[in-house]
Each structure stands twice: as C-alpha cells, then as structure tokens.
C-alpha cells in the first residue's frame, strides 16, 4: 500500500529525515511516536508531498510519487490528511468545508456532495452542525469535521499528525473514538500520536523515531512494555 524506501529530507543543510524505510500494508494502523523535532511531521508531509523529497522513493499503491511524471493532485486525493491545527476553512460552513474538494476536484454535483457530506457528518456525530461556521465549534468538533472533510475524498489512506494535541483533555476521547471506528472499518492509517491507549487498542505497529531515524519498530505491547533500545526506554519513561 505504502512503501517508503530510504527517504531523506533536508531543509537547507539541516538533515531532518536521514534514511527512513517503512512498508504499510492495506488496513494496517501504524502509530509513530518520538520526541519533538525528531521528524514525525516531516515524514507524514513527505508522504503526500507537502514537503519536497530530497532523496529516496515513496510508492503509494505502486505509484512512485517522487517521479516527476506522477500527477500529485491525483495522489493527494487518495491520501487524506488531518492536521494538529484542524485547518478548517473559516469562511465556509461546516457542510461547505466538506463539499468543496469533492465538487472542485472530482466535479461531483452540489446535491450529491451535500448528501455525502451529511452522511459523513452523521458518522462523526455532528449532523446538526452542518450549517454552523467552524468558529462556533469546540476543538473536538472541529477535528471531527476535519476528519469528515478528508474522508469526503474517499481516500485509501489517512494520515493523522497529532490530531488530539491541540485539544482540551476532555475532548480527546471523542476524536479518538472516531479514529478507532475508522480503523475498525479497515482504513489504512499512519497516526502520529502519543496517546498510548489508542496505540495499544487499534495500532498494529508502533514506530519510534528519533533524530530522523527509525530507532525501533514493534507491536504496541512489545514496544511499550519491553522496549529494546535505550533511547526508546528513555523517551517512554518521559511520556508515560
């Protein structure tokens, strides 16, 4: 599904991803953890080319996205992304946030896009907020709308970059619940998060990154309870 081969990324002379290779199988949920600045966001952003890749290859369903001939807009419709800061469009109503890309990118009619949008809002428990503006929503509600917006493009893969870190603690649960539901439905997901409960419940694999490298990779229970590397131990003792 996703194959990352010797991915390297530099900002100027600062090498942020040094040599990352990962394979993600269909329906797999991979959780990425690691200290601040270790390159987790950059890794996710390389997978849908929000960052240009310095070296290496990323294959999505066999398509090499680093190939100049690849239509990156097409690739991005297959890869949904959810951001820490939600990034909802403040000038559009909730339902319009969801309808915009399907209408403009996929040329779906407004009626159909609305129907689909309402369905997705029901799924994330926010059908009654369809006509509200994002500013009037709580953080948890915003993030659930952002998830619905990404799902509207019917992506095959979803990337989550610390989706609950900007939320008040009492709102984390509602967002994780939606993500768990997605995982159960078989969505392929890469999730950067430090929510260990979530990782243990739905994660198939946890990757620990530090300084632009994958230090350790294992099932959630193994990695959290029996870390092999010193750096992993040191990190876990700080966050757990």
């Amino acid at each position, binding site marked *: 599904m996703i194959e990352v081969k010797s991915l390297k990324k530099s900002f100027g002379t600062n090498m942020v991803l040094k040599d990352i290779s990962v394979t993600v199988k269909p329906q797999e949920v991979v959780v990425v953890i690691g200290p601040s600045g270790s390159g987790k966001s950059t890794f996710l952003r390389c997978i849908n080319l929000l960052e240009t890749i310095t070296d290496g290859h990323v294959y999505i369903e066999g398509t090499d996205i680093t190939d100049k001939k690849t239509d990156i*807009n*097409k690739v991005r419709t297959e*890869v*949904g992304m959810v*951001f820490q*800061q939600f*990034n909802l*469009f403040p000038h559009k109503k909730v339902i319009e946030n969801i309808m915009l890309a399907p209408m403009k990118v996929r040329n779906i009619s407004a009626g159909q896009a609305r129907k689909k949008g309402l369905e997705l809002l029901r799924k994330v428990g926010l059908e009654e907020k369809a006509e509200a503006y994002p500013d009037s929503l709580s953080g948890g509600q915003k993030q659930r709308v952002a998830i619905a917006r*990404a799902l509207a493009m019917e992506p095959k893969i979803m990337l989550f970059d610390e989706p609950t870190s900007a939320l008040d603690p009492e709102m984390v649960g509602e967002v994780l619940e939606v993500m768990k539901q997605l995982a159960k439905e078989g969505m392929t997901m890469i999730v950067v998060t430090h929510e260990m409960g979530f990782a243990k419940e739905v994660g198939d694999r946890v990757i620990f990154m530090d300084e632009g490298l994958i230090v350790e990779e294992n099932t959630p229970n193994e990695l959290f309870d029996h870390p092999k590397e010193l750096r992993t131990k040191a990190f876990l003792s700080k966050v757990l």
Partner: protein
Amino acid sequence: MDIQWNILAEYAPFFLKGTLLTIGLSLAGIALGTVLGLFIGLGKMLKNRFLSLPFGIYITFFRGTPMLVQIMLIHFAVVPLFTGETNAVAAAILTLSLNSAAYIAEIFRAGIQSIDKGQMEASRSLGMTHVQAMRYVILPQAFKRMIPPLGNEFIVLIKESSLASLVAAPELMYWGRAMQGQYFRVWEPYITAALIYLVLTLSLSFVLSRLERRLATE
C-alpha cells in the same frame, strides 16, 4: 472674513465640472491601480528572486518618491515621449494608477500572506490545485482583510488627485486656484474645495464600511 457669495455662484459650474473630473480621475486611478496592483503584488510574490526583483523595484520607486515628482516626470517627460505632446488628464490618470498600484500591490501581498499556511496545505492535501486553493480558499479570506487598507488607499488617492491641478488638469483644485488667481480671494475657493473633497472621501468611507459589515456577517 466676509464671504463673497456672488463669485462663488459664478464659479459653481466650474466647481461642478472640476468635481466630476476629480471623481473621474479617482475612479480611473482606483480601477487601473487595482488591476495593476494585483498583477504587481503577484509578481512580487514569485519565488524566483530574479523574476520578483523588477516588481520590488517598481514598488520601492513609487512608494519612495513624492507623487508630485512622479506627476511632473510623467506629464512633461513620459507622456510626450510616447505621444509627442503633453496631456494633463492622461498624465494624472497614469500617475494615480501607477502610484496606487505600488501601494495596492503591498496590500494584496500582505493580505494573502496573512492567511495561515495551514489553509493552503489543507486545500492541497485534499487534491486541489494551487489555483483552486487560491481561488476558493485563500483569496476569499484575504479579500475580506484587504478591504480596510484598500479603502484607506482609495481615500488617499482621491485627495492626491488634487496634484493634477499642478499640471493644469481642470479638476476641482485647478478651479480653486483659478478662482484665487482671478479674484485674489483665498477663503472662498479653498474652503469650497475642501468641503467637496470631504464629501467625496466621506461618501467613499460610508460605502466601504457598509461593504465591510455585509461581508462580516456573511
């Protein structure tokens, strides 16, 4: 100070004609300046430094030199260079457009750059092209923020159109000066001109604040 109403009455038709030209110059300056300003603002935002350099120089020149100097240059040197003769109205419109374009370019650029980077990233991650993201996400938000500074710029432009009197374009201030020259009176012409300018600028602010409120509730 005793106001001589009879000479004011005599000059009323000239003030009216002058006011119409002032409005015309301002509207032309606003329209051309906005179009040119958008273009120059986009040019200034080009990632390639060599391509964006000329736009930067343009902005620096027009913002860094007095408009009086610009209008003299354009009236006596630039326009005759192209047409072989001077034309005060053309020179005034050209100067107002070129000058305001420099300010509008910066307003435009600042408006776009004030929109959070995450908006573009979210749009692109949904598969929109750069142009689609600009059109449906970035520009509608930037436009709202640009209205107050654009309004200020338009008001400045109305006032600065009075410089056209110095190259003898027969706008409002030109007739004020003509009246002073003919009757050696200063209060009547200039108070009248001031009041008319005030009416013009206040009307424009009124329209703009209405527009702003309309957009705010949308």
